[in-house]
């Protein structure tokens, strides 16, 4: 047992007191990571001890197929102890024959999706789960095929299991269904909500998401080398691509045991904050668009556009910058551009202030946002909501402060908290964060050291090392978990986007609201389904009559493109 800090010792003691001999092993693979190997039977007690007796916050669960390593399946529940800057990993080895484990969702509601996900992905059954429906796998996905097992090829398309209808909740008596999606104007991405309504009042909803699944995690840990992984991570999300690539690189760097040079960390900070600025401005516009306020959309995007030009000038692309690599950066910010950053941000700041003034005094905006989409602090904590929605509910969490990365230990960020818990509070939090970002960029450019931008990696990277990294995205905290493998590529790569927990809070937020408020309520989370649904394999859903297999689709396409066809 190698435990260094006081806090780690305390946690270990607490856990040892609760589960006794079931605590098999404690180690601290990274200075900020504490790994407990526990007996699967004690997982619930351990989780209970962590969330009830410590300020630990649930992050995510990783299911790993460790059968090739002779360890069965590993279920790793990750927690964050913000006050001590510690990650806690509860690692349970599940027998490869008897694939079941106690669900912790009854104790940690935020684990709902994650547990359903590892059930679908690697086939470990969470027993006692309150909602044991399939989450990520399509309804016609054959039983017993688990895409994230090591023996599943990333490009294998399993045959359909037949015309199985999805298990969807039926509307309560007296209500009807208003479907939202998968194609819906204010859902920029495909997702399918079934709103149960009486008139326009929402009395419940069901979510059938995971339309956006591109199998990124599987690609990442089977088809991609460390070299390519940041580029893939960048495309998890087109808006906060740099955040994901940074997070991925940092996790790998931690696992490898290197650190990016100071200059690279400062540049990362600047880029991250630039991304936050353009993302928040974008969100402001989209939120305005959702409530029909086109002028605010146009104006906030007008203010945002110079930032995009700036990022193109710095990185060579407006988005998905392609700047990160493991160990640092691929390109530097030259001195003239540093000056230009200041120059571009000045009018942004000025106009932002004008916009803020206008919004605060706008009674119609207030009428649409105040008291709407309320997420109580208690529920937010239970679901483990992150980012602006959490901060708007009075929870002071911010990965930049809780687990400082990049240059945030030297250029500390301020946490912007509001108590309103409604959409308006989320607007204010984001407006505050915009100002904070501008300040941070200014501070970081002023303090930016010189030197190299990349640390060279040793030839061979040992397998079996883990790295956990969090980055505060505009939407909240993104978590990347990496376990290194052989062959120059990761063994398991797990991404938790901020929308993942936030989206689970939606049913509570829309309950009792009207149909008119649903888009803005969902929008107020700034949801990003593409981030959320990276891992799930979702096949063509079988509705009543039509099932298109890939072959059928191809055939139809050929018929259509043939001369004399429909077109």
């Amino acid at each position, binding site marked *: 047992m190698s435990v260094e800090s006081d806090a780690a010792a305390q946690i270990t003691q607490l856990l040892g007191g609760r589960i006794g001999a079931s605590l098999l092993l404690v180690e601290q693979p990274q200075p900020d990571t504490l790994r407990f190997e526990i007996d699967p039977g004690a997982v619930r007690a351990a989780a209970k001890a962590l969330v009830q007796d410590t300020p630990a916050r649930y992050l995510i669960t990783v299911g790993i197929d460790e059968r090739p390593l002779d360890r069965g399946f590993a279920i790793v529940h990750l927690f964050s102890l913000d006050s001590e800057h510690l990650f806690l990993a509860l690692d349970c080895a599940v027998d490869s024959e008897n694939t079941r484990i106690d669900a912790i969702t009854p104790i940690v509601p935020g684990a709902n999706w994650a547990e359903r996900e590892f059930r679908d992905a690697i086939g470990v059954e969470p027993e006692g789960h309150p909602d044991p429906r399939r989450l990520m796998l399509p309804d016609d996905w054959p039983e017993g095929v688990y895409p994230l097992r090591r023996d599943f090829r990333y*490009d*294998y398309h399993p045959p359909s299991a037949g015309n199985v209808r999805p298990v969807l909740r039926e509307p309560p008596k007296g209500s009807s269904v208003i479907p939202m999606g998968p194609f819906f104007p204010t859902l920029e991405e495909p997702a399918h909500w079934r709103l149960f309504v009486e008139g326009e009042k929402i009395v419940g909803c069901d979510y059938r998401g995971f339309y956006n699944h591109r199998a990124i995690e599987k690609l990442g840990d089977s088809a991609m080398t460390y070299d390519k992984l940041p*580029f893939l991570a960048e495309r998890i999300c087109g808006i906060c691509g740099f955040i994901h690539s940074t997070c991925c690189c940092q996790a790998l760097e931690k696992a490898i045991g290197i650190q990016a040079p100071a200059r690279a960390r400062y540049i990362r900070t600047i880029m991250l904050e630039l991304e936050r600025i353009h993302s928040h401005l974008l969100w402001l516009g989209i939120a305005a668009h959702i409530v029909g306020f086109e002028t605010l959309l146009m104006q906030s995007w007008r203010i945002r556009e110079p930032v995009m030009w700036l990022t*193109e000038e*710095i990185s060579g*692309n407006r988005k998905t910058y*392609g700047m990160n690599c493991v160990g640092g950066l*691929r390109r530097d910010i030259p001195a003239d551009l540093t000056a230009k950053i200041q120059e571009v941000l000045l009018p942004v700041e000025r106009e932002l202030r004008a916009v803020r003034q206008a919004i605060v005094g706008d*009674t119609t905006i207030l009428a649409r946002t105040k008291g709407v989409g309320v997420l109580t602090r208690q529920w937010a904590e239970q679901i483990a909501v992150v980012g602006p929605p959490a901060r708007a509910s009075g929870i002071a969490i911010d990965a930049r402060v809780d687990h400082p990365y990049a240059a945030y230990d030297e250029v500390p960020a301020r946490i912007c908290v509001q108590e309103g818990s409604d959409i308006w509070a989320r607007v204010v939090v984001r407006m505050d964060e915009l100002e904070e970002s501008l300040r941070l960029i200014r501070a970081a450019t002023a303090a930016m050291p010189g030197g190299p931008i990349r640390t060279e990696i040793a030839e061979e990277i040992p397998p079996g090392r883990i790295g956990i990294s969090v980055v505060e995205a505009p939407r909240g905290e993104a978590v990347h978990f990496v376990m290194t493998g052989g062959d120059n590529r990761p063994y398991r790569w797990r991404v938790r986007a901020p929308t993942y927990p936030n989206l689970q809070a939606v049913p509570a937020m829309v309950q009792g609201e009207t149909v008119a408020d649903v888009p803005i309520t969902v929008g107020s989370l700034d949801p990003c389904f593409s981030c959320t649904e990276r891992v799930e394999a979702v096949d063509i859903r079988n509705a009543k009559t039509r099932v298109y297999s890939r072959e059928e689709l191809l055939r139809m396409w050929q018929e259509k493109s043939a001369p004399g066809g429909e077109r």
Partner: protein
Amino acid sequence: MLLSKLREALICLKAGRVTLPYPSAPHDPSPRFRGKITVDPDRCFGCGGCANVCPAGVILIHDTDQHTRVLEFQWRRCTYCGRCEEVCPEQAIHMSQQFETATDRPEDLVIRLEVFMGPCQRCGRCFPPPTPLDRMMVSGFRSGGNGGRQ
């Protein structure tokens, strides 16, 4: 309320019209911009390093006969990361400034390059000349085709 709204309208008017004249006037991207890839057929010697590092598997390599290696750049799915440009030992690949790449035919988004290769004296198969990139060849060659798909 009406008055405050009118004031908002005035704030908006202050910015004036900002619409750029593109496409009737050209609009150049910034100098660092990574646009469409160009390949210099005279420089490429078919090492395949680019294919190896490409995250999107854009570059397909096939040896048709003993003397010819075909490099097909399916750049319709290019992610413009610029890795190929970085690793090309001969600077044969270049990320141009061109972004006006819209087309109505998918085949316009393909570059096909045939490189004459020296065959191995012993086995008769062609091989790329040894390069500093051999180290990278060790890992993760992503199969381009439909792989294990049924």
